[in-house]
């Protein structure tokens, strides 16, 4: 990930910062500038997700890219946040301990790094709640 690309997403990665449409009550992560349901009638505001949710489904990665912050095997899951949006994230846990439907909460971790000399990508992962 190039430095500007990471920097642009930094606030959303650190704090699960998304959006909420005050008109229809929908929540979006990543954030949307326009509510796709309400279109012109939408009233979109920034929203910081609480970071609690459940595992909808997951996979165990055995052959991932070489990455010191994410050694294989690791768990990649689709998580449904309590406010509604679904997102893909790593679950920091033993693969055997991860179950569909289990409660998870967000934590602040290293997501990776550009290289040994490059920047470190920080952001949100999930752990069993």
């Amino acid at each position, binding site marked *: 990930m190039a430095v500007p690309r990471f920097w642009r997403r930094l606030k959303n990665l650190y704090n699960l910062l998304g959006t909420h449409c005050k008109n229809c009550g929908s929540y979006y992560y990543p954030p949307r500038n326009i509510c796709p349901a309400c279109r012109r009638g939408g009233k979109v505001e920034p929203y910081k997700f609480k970071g609690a949710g459940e595992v909808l489904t997951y996979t165990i990665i055995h052959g991932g890219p*070489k990455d*010191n*912050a994410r050694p294989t095997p690791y768990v990649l899951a689709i998580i449904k946040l309590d406010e509604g949006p679904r997102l893909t994230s790593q679950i920091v846990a033993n693969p055997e301990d991860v179950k569909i439907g289990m409660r998870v909460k967000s934590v602040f971790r290293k997501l990776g790094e550009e290289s040994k000399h490059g920047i470190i990508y920080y952001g949100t992962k999930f752990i069993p709640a």
Partner: protein
Amino acid sequence: MSVGIVSYGAYIPRYRIKLEEIAKVWGDDPASITGGLMVLEKSVPDIDEDTATIAVEAARYAVSRAGIDASRIGAIYTGSESHPYAVKPTSTIVAEAIDATPALTAADFEFACKAGTAGIQTCMGLVASNIIDLGMAIGSDVAQGAPGDALEYTAAAGGVAYVIGSRDLAAEIEATYSYTTDTPDFWRREGMPYPEHGGRFTGEPGYFKHVVSAARGLMDKLGTKPQDYNYAVFHQPNGKFPRRAAQMLGFSTEQIKPGIVVTLLGNTYSGSCMMGLAATLDIAKPGDRIFVTAFGSGAGSDAFSIRVTDGMEKIRGGAPSVESLLQNPVYVNYAIYAKHKGKIRL
């Protein structure tokens, strides 16, 4: 104006390694190691945890414990000897992650194991002079110890964040006093992965001289004596040093007991003394007085006299206690520990 602790938060990674496991690898006698150091196990960071992630978790607990509006925080100082970047502040990462940006000042501190308490003193000054409303001082480390070195038995991971202010205090900092000299007892040269130390030299001219002098200096300044305090906390590179310092100063075993966290945690370097204080605040009652003396090699000591206020009861349950953070550890063997600590170069 009274200045003190408005809130605090601690974070300890869930992994542990027993000292006997390390002793087995290096051919040392486990009983003599654990008996000599008075430490049984130490915390190990997860593979994706570092000083910044630990500082953020501690800072978030400090903010949530007292329900603080993070935009009130006008300064963040993170003390560590294992900042992930040589140039690029850990404190800006923390500030962004707790939503305290952009109207604040931030910097990273380094003074071996007392960089976090130096941050507390800086925040006290800024708050007392009305330059900022709240300041946050953090001590966080993924402590380094070279494979096979004596330090490897205790170098641990953890962090503590304190929010310093003048209103809604959970504990008032009555006074602080520091004692600093140029003493080369422990160091890490630029670009080197592990610190070096002067062996036994670190004891008398380093730790004990500075801790005892700072502690006596503060008590002289205030006209207090050890019996005036309910609790005392000292920097704890091992279990022996704080006990001996307490004895030299006239503090009892009971007074230092709640703050001795090194036995099951190890030495969290910049987080060490601050973690002992957090564990003591977890159980302290309004009116209790706590005497705190941090030590950083190189060398210096910061002493604090703290009085717990009624506000402590309001924030006590707002974040995990140190005792709860120490519970349910996941034990790893030396190979996994070496992988987590980056001792295996890929």
